[in-house]
């Protein structure tokens, strides 16, 4: 769709290229790991693709950014919890896994739309919920992370759209 010379990020060509590489690699891995046949739940596959998309985004950016670190951390915890699930198929462990997940999530802002005691408006709270990893940042850093996150999301969307177009035409 768009030529690779279009500046999409800090380093114009490389972000998109790296994202494509990484995303395809992740998808490949996904396909190979689990045998996804035609008729099995599309929902499951959709979740995995989504996870692959975010994971590839986070991996490309690395640990430079708070949001990418948060995503990578979540993924790692999710893997740990699924491993727990697999080892003992007991409901207790299931709860354990779920509680692990819950413990790792941030509890800082419950769902309220009023002005926080810190002086955050409702909008900032929303933004903090949307962008991962910015819960405890000041307004300045929040905007910084949001900008980077938007950049990466936009490139990821572009990459995925290209892929879909390609697959649908093939």
């Amino acid at each position, binding site marked *: 769709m768009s*030529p*690779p010379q279009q500046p999409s990020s800090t380093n114009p060509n490389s972000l998109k290229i790296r994202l*494509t*590489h*990484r995303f*395809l*690699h992740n*998808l*490949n891995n996904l*396909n*190979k790991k689990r045998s*996804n*046949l*035609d008729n099995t739940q*599309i929902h499951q*596959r*959709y979740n*995995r*693709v*989504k996870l*692959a*998309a*975010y994971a590839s985004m986070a991996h490309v950016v690395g640990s430079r950014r708070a949001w990418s670190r948060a995503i990578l951390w979540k993924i790692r915890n999710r893997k740990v919890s699924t491993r727990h699930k697999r080892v003992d198929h007991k409901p207790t462990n299931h709860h354990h896994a779920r509680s692990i997940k819950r413990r790792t999530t941030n509890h800082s802002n419950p769902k309220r739309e009023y002005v926080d005691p810190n002086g955050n*408006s409702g*909008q*900032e709270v*929303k*933004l903090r919920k*949307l*962008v991962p990893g910015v819960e405890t940042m000041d*307004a*300045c850093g929040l*905007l*910084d992370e*949001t*900008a980077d*996150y*938007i*950049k990466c*999301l*936009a490139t*990821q*969307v572009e990459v*995925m*759209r*290209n*892929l*879909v177009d*390609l*697959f*649908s035409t*093939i």
Partner: protein
Amino acid sequence: MLHCHYTTMNIPGNTSGTDVSVLERQQARMKWRQQQQQGLSNDDHCFRGLVEIKPDPGLQYGWPDFSDACQDQLIPPLVADHNLKKRKTHEDHKQKAVSKENGVKDKKIKRCSEENSTETSPKEKPKAVETQKQEYIHVRARRGQATDSHSLAERVRREKISERMKYLQDLVPGCNKITGKAGMLDEIINYVQSLQKQVEFLSMKLATLQPRLDFDIDSLIMKEMFEVPAIGYSSEVANSTYFQVNSLLEMGNSPIDTMLRRSIGGPVSIPETFVVSSCFNQMQPGVTWDGDLHNLYRMEIQQESTTIPFQHKFTGSYEGSNLKMEL
């Protein structure tokens, strides 16, 4: 009035104990500042007199700072009459760091020099400059603006935020007309939400498309994505795909990697290697289709139409684990 103070200060300072004098010193300090606001030149010598008297012999813990500070702040307001820039000297910065009471002091002293500069000038005048980034940010106050340590720091913070908002405005499409932080934040939130929804939607689409496709085609995709025309496998195209495949394979997809390495030497056309590799991937589970495989190979190589759909259908059939000859 000052003279009254002068006299009243003298007497108790000499006679009574420490407690009273501290309080009186504070009071005198406050009144000194107030009077300084009213008129500088008149009270100069009086102040200086006060300063001399204040540091009582017995009690010096608080005073040396005060006296030094006094003198420093005496001088700038006088000089500030001439240039209307408010200078924050290094000592002022120290004070800012040390205690907040001094912040109050700064406010009042600088307010008096502010009153001298009655013009509320535009902001093109000496702008706030972050001269050096030491521990403290040295900022120059603009003309006609408050020069608190607090308000200066807040102004710096606000400028940082507005700088980032401008950058975000460039990122988010269609935000040029919107001014104001609240509207911008709304737009940003909407945009992030819409991007995330798009990712979800596209991943759903990919998930539905996936079973029919094997991702060994990904190298071809790479080629297509970077808009190299994929009409036929001319040599340049083949070379480019080859290089892209190599770059892709840096990630280390081992079975494909080994297959390609094996096929590097021979004058093999690229699609064949893909087919070979994909076959090898699929062949591990079920090996019964050897003969048919070779037949298909030959048919594919002979046919010189676009090999991509063939490949796709070919491998797709493997995915489904049924050998449906869709040709």
